[in-house]
């Protein structure tokens, strides 16, 4: 058996392994892919709550068959005709759309949580890192407006690296736009629950993700305004390990509760029962 044969055999094994196994981003443990999916992408070894798709999140939170998508037609826009080293933003977003089957980084709709009707907006990190573009902001805003009109609780599940630079200042404006919508909801006494998943940072953490009546985080997830590296460069010291984790934010007063993925739906349902709609 020659050297090249050995190599190709080992290569083949690795491919098989990658098919069968998933490597946990938290603890680097190898977990059977089947077990991984059955466990809702939560590592059975370390409890890391890995990203899931919007469809998995819908299945997790919304009663089967009750989800009606709203504003599905809204996609990305390219107000700046932005182009960077890797080419035009328009191509990038088209590729993201093709890859994910989504038109924007968030899917919105109405549905039921153990029978309770809600409006829900679910971000998906696969779509350009869950970045906050104009379309994302628009769909979040329209969710809040729909919730206001129908007096339904609004639930937003965040997963985002922050603002979408390719839309420049218009991305920044989505922070003000979404918060304006939630402000109206708040003044009208309609509940807004924010669910923060891995990661929720930058412009999304500094807008709608942080102003829930109740802010719920999945365990261990990263939540913060500035990036870890930027902060370390600024203050010229290493940050503690638990910095910007859900647990850190809870201890510092910004997160109401931490709930495991499998318990999230029940918790939401129990919380929404405390609203005395008038």
């Amino acid at each position, binding site marked *: 058996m020659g050297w090249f044969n050995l190599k190709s055999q080992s290569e083949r094994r690795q491919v098989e392994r990658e098919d069968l196994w998933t490597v946990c981003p938290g603890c680097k443990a190898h977990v059977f892919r089947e077990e991984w999916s059955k466990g809702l992408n939560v590592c059975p070894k370390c409890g890391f709550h890995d990203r899931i798709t919007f469809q998995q999140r819908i299945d997790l939170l919304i009663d089967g068959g009750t989800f009606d998508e709203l504003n599905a037609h809204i*996609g990305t*826009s390219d*107000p*700046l*005709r*932005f*182009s*960077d*080293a*890797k080419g035009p933003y328009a191509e990038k977003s088209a590729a993201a759309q093709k890859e994910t089957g989504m038109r924007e980084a968030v899917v919105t709709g109405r549905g039921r949580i153990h029978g309770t009707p809600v409006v829900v907006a679910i971000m998906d990190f696969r779509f350009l890192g869950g970045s906050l*573009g*104009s*379309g994302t*902001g*628009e769909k979040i*805003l329209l969710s809040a407006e729909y919730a206001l009109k129908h007096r339904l609780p609004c639930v937003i599940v965040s997963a985002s690296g922050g*603002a979408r*630079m390719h*839309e*420049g*200042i*218009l*991305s*920044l*404006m*989505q*922070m*003000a*736009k979404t*918060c*304006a919508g*939630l*402000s109206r909801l708040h*003044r009208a006494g309609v509940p807004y629950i924010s669910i923060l998943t891995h990661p929720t940072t*930058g*412009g999304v*953490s*500094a*807008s*709608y*993700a*942080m*102003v829930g009546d109740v802010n719920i985080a999945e365990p261990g997830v990263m*939540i*913060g*305004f*500035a*990036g870890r590296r*930027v*902060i370390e460069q*600024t*203050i010229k*010291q290493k*940050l503690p390990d638990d*910095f*910007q984790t859900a647990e*850190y934010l809870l201890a*510092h*007063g*910004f997160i109401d509760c931490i709930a495991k993925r499998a318990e999230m739906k029940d918790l939401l349902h129990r919380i929404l029962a405390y609203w005395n709609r008038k």
Partner: protein
Amino acid sequence: MDLEFEKEIVEVERRIAELNRLNADPKANFDAEIAELTKKLEALRRSVYAGLSPWQTVQIARHKDRPLLQDYIAGMFREFIELHGDRCYADDRGIIGGFARLDKRRVMLIGHQKGRTVEENIKANFGMANPDGYRKALRLMKLAEKYGLPVVTLIDTPGAYPGMEAEARGQAEAIARNLTEMSALEVPVVAVITGEGGSGGAIGIGVGDAVLMLSNAIYSVISPEGCASILWRDGSQAPRAAEALKLTAPSLLELGIIDEIVPEPPGGAHRDHKAVMAALRDALLRHLRALASLSPRKLVERRYEKYTRMGRRDARAERRARRHEKR
């Protein structure tokens, strides 16, 4: 440290100063030369400043001699009673505020504070506010609401401070809260980007019924350097990023993000504080007058419409931007 593209201007300025010095001698007479050079200088200032690239504008916006909050307070307002503290944790020095009089109008003035000297800058944290600064700003806006006072914010920050303590005390929450509350504030809010409008740190006090911008100010979701190092993987591509981000006043006006450009004198605000303050004062008074006639309800409705329209698919702003592209 002079800017590269200003070299010629600075050289002429230097020669005029030299001739003026010589001219002090009663036997000398350089009046004609001085007059000619002055004419040349003006033409030069106009031509250089008319053709600034976005990246050059970034450098002007950050110029150390540009008027800072304390200059506006001293030179444009007739009174300033500083009000300290967030009633919770600290009196941040990166954002300051208080009662102020602009001509005969009384306002709540809030702005980012940068320093000119190193000591000043350390005290003001280089204009990068902590959460306490944003919370102080909100407290003062709420006080303005109670007193029926319009709010004027002057924005000039590289961004909200990215420090460990700032994160621990909730930089994200403080900005998010401000955006939420400002959208429903029942008094007029006029925001002015006077220098650097740095991302969340800028909009954290920047939700206004009217948003004005000095002609050489910038306003961006990220610094050109940061953008370049992420999207080009090369910080030296900042000029290209500055171009792509559309962060100058004319671009932002086209995009419908700002409502008016306040012209700086040729040669930039750093060459003539008085001129830019006169222009800004006029613009502010005009907007304050117009907004004063609106009921609180109407104000809040208009502000909601304004911000929820931004980046709306098929919205006017986008169409405008495309039209701009085609030119």
